[in-house]
């Protein structure tokens, strides 16, 4: 098991830059999520760590050794593909034992290892079946089996649950996380599903357009997004932005939108011009009183909670409120924010402004 350091890695495909200088560190034993929309460079990043693509520039360290330009077969890592990539002309046992064969392990030992892995994954009874007719879940387990049988330094997983249906996906994600906790293996996991990332990951890297937007533990990223992209990409509904023109100075504790002022965490940077006040839906309360008012334009009932859409002077906000709270479309309501949770953004750079509340988190990115 190993620590993985990605340092200023860049990948160009001709004129197209898939990954711009990216850096992050995966600690030994961590379950690390690479999160982003499709085409953001997360899979390319993973493939570079695995050695399926060679970086144009930059360094990759696995277990202290620089492997940036080494072929995949020399890196001692395992890779789980989205489409599983089980060898279709081999049965389950042959698939799982294939990586051991390349190491020249004696047959008896291979048999023992495969049996052990099959027991862990609960696939002992299908070992002699061809892989063709198996269900998605079984294929997934075999792909995992082929990865863990060799006890590699690290696991790379490229949207391994992407090919499964929703119900089974949840089950597999739990199984996967349990497997990880049991083996304590460094794992890098690519996904475009923010829920999956938050649910499973010890740490998350959010990427967009080939750039690392933010890197940290799920809660930090959710609470204190470093950029407007992260704020929008993570959370459902995403963070609300009240867009306004104004200025903040170092030490400011309020933000003034029109003629209403909101209490905010103490600011550590100054900015002016196009700004945005960001607040998560669950940190907004609606009341009959209040200076800042809006009109309810929609409600969505979700069982225990409801999402209330309120049109305000500086934009539409979505509010997560208890299901029981009365809300009628057309009602005029007062809107209040939990001041400790507010993040200000500079809309020109789309980056978060540093405040007392998020400074520790932003320094990570």
């Amino acid at each position, binding site marked *: 098991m190993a620590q993985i350091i990605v340092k200023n890695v860049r990948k160009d495909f001709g004129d197209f830059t898939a990954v711009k200088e990216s850096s992050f560190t995966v600690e030994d034993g961590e379950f690390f999520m690479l999160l982003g929309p499709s085409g953001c460079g997360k899979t390319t990043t993973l493939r570079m760590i695995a050695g*399926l693509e060679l970086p144009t520039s930059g360094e990759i360290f696995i277990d202290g050794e620089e492997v940036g330009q080494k*072929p995949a077969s020399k890196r001692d890592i*395992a890779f789980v*593909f989205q*489409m599983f990539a089980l*060898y279709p002309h081999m049965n389950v046992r042959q698939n799982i034992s294939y*990586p051991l064969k*390349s190491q020249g392990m004696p047959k008896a030992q291979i048999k023992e290892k495969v049996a052990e892995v099959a027991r862990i994954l609960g696939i002992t009874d299908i070992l002699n079946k061809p892989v063709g007719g198996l269900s998605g879940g079984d294929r997934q387990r075999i792909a995992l089996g082929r990865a863990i049988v060799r006890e590699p330094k690290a696991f790379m997983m490229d949207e391994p649950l992407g090919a499964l249906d929703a119900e089974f996906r949840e089950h597999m994600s739990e199984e996967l996380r349990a497997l990880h906790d049991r083996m304590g293996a460094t794992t890098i996991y690519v996904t475009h599903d923010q829920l999956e990332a938050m649910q499973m990951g010890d740490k998350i890297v959010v990427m967009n357009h080939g750039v690392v937007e933010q890197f940290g533990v799920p809660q930090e990223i959710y609470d204190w997004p470093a950029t407007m992209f992260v704020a929008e990409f993570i959370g459902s509904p995403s963070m609300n932005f009240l867009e306004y023109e104004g200025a903040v100075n170092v030490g400011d504790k309020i933000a003034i939108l029109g003629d209403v002022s909101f209490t905010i965490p103490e600011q550590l940077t100054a900015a002016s011009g196009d700004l945005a006040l960001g607040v998560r839906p669950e940190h907004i309360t609606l009341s009959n009183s209040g200076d800042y008012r809006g009109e309810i334009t929609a409600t969505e009932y979700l069982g225990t909670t409801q999402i209330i859409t309120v049109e305000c002077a500086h934009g539409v906000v979505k509010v997560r409120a208890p299901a029981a709270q009365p809300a009628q479309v057309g009602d005029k309501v007062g809107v209040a924010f939990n001041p400790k949770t507010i993040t200000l953004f500079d809309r020109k750079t789309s980056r978060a402004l540093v405040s007392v509340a998020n400074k520790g988190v932003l320094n990570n990115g």
Partner: protein
Amino acid sequence: MSSFSVTEPSKRQKWFAGSLVILYALITIMPLIWIIATGFKSPSDAIAYPPKVFFEPSMEGYVNLFTSRTRLPAEELAALPPSETWYQELVRDNGMVITGPSRYGQRFLNSVIIGFGSTFLSIFLGTLAAYGFSRFKVPIKDDLLFFILSTRMMPPIAVAIPIFLMFRQIGLSDSHLGMILLYTAVNLSLSVWLLKGFIDEIPLEYEEAALIDGYTRFQAFYKVVLPQAATGIASTAIFCLIFAWNEYAFAVLLTSGNAQTAPPFIPTIIGAGGKDWPAVAAGATIFLIPVMIFTILLRKHLLSGITFGAVRK
């Protein structure tokens, strides 16, 4: 199932489709049946009009195909010791004696050597080239592929003379090697294109999985890609073999003796002692057998290969 189904064809539709297939099969198989039947007719039955569907089978065609004969006056024939075998008897009944074996056997062997040799070479080189084109960044790839295909754009006869001269210059005229190389050159464009299609269909992940599992690129190709491409290789091999096996124009121009294949030889039977159609038919029948066996052996692959992986996902 008695319930109505949108996708399941009705009984009448099935019956209709089945009849069409059978009718088409009958039409295509007719010439084959005719050739096989003619091989067992006597020369007079073979050219009888109206054609004879029922006839007394005779081995004359096959005997004539495999033997050289000479005509003897009746009194000399009568003076000969009694014939030892049934085929000697058959030939003597027609007023002739066997002087030796014909050259058909040797021509047939030439066809086997040249046909299978060039097929093997076309597939071997074609698979490697197709893999390269499919998986690696090759400069001016599209132009190269077009250039490869362009070798098939002119009729073989157009290049036969230059090839004839070249072969004479380098001593490949009327040689097995020359014909194998020539058919390989012609078939290679087909095999590269077909096989590239098949290899393109094989997901890259299989090889990547093998690379990660600690195998080299060549091992990944050999152990993972090749088994996956077996279907494509089999159907391409059939196409290559059928071409090389049946090729006539080059064979008739570039071979005369040593390396002559069966196709240019069979028509020469016609001239040897009258229009011996049963012998020609017998030669054609035997000539069909190897391709038939080869195709039947690879039939399973051919069926799935012919759809060009359209449904294999």
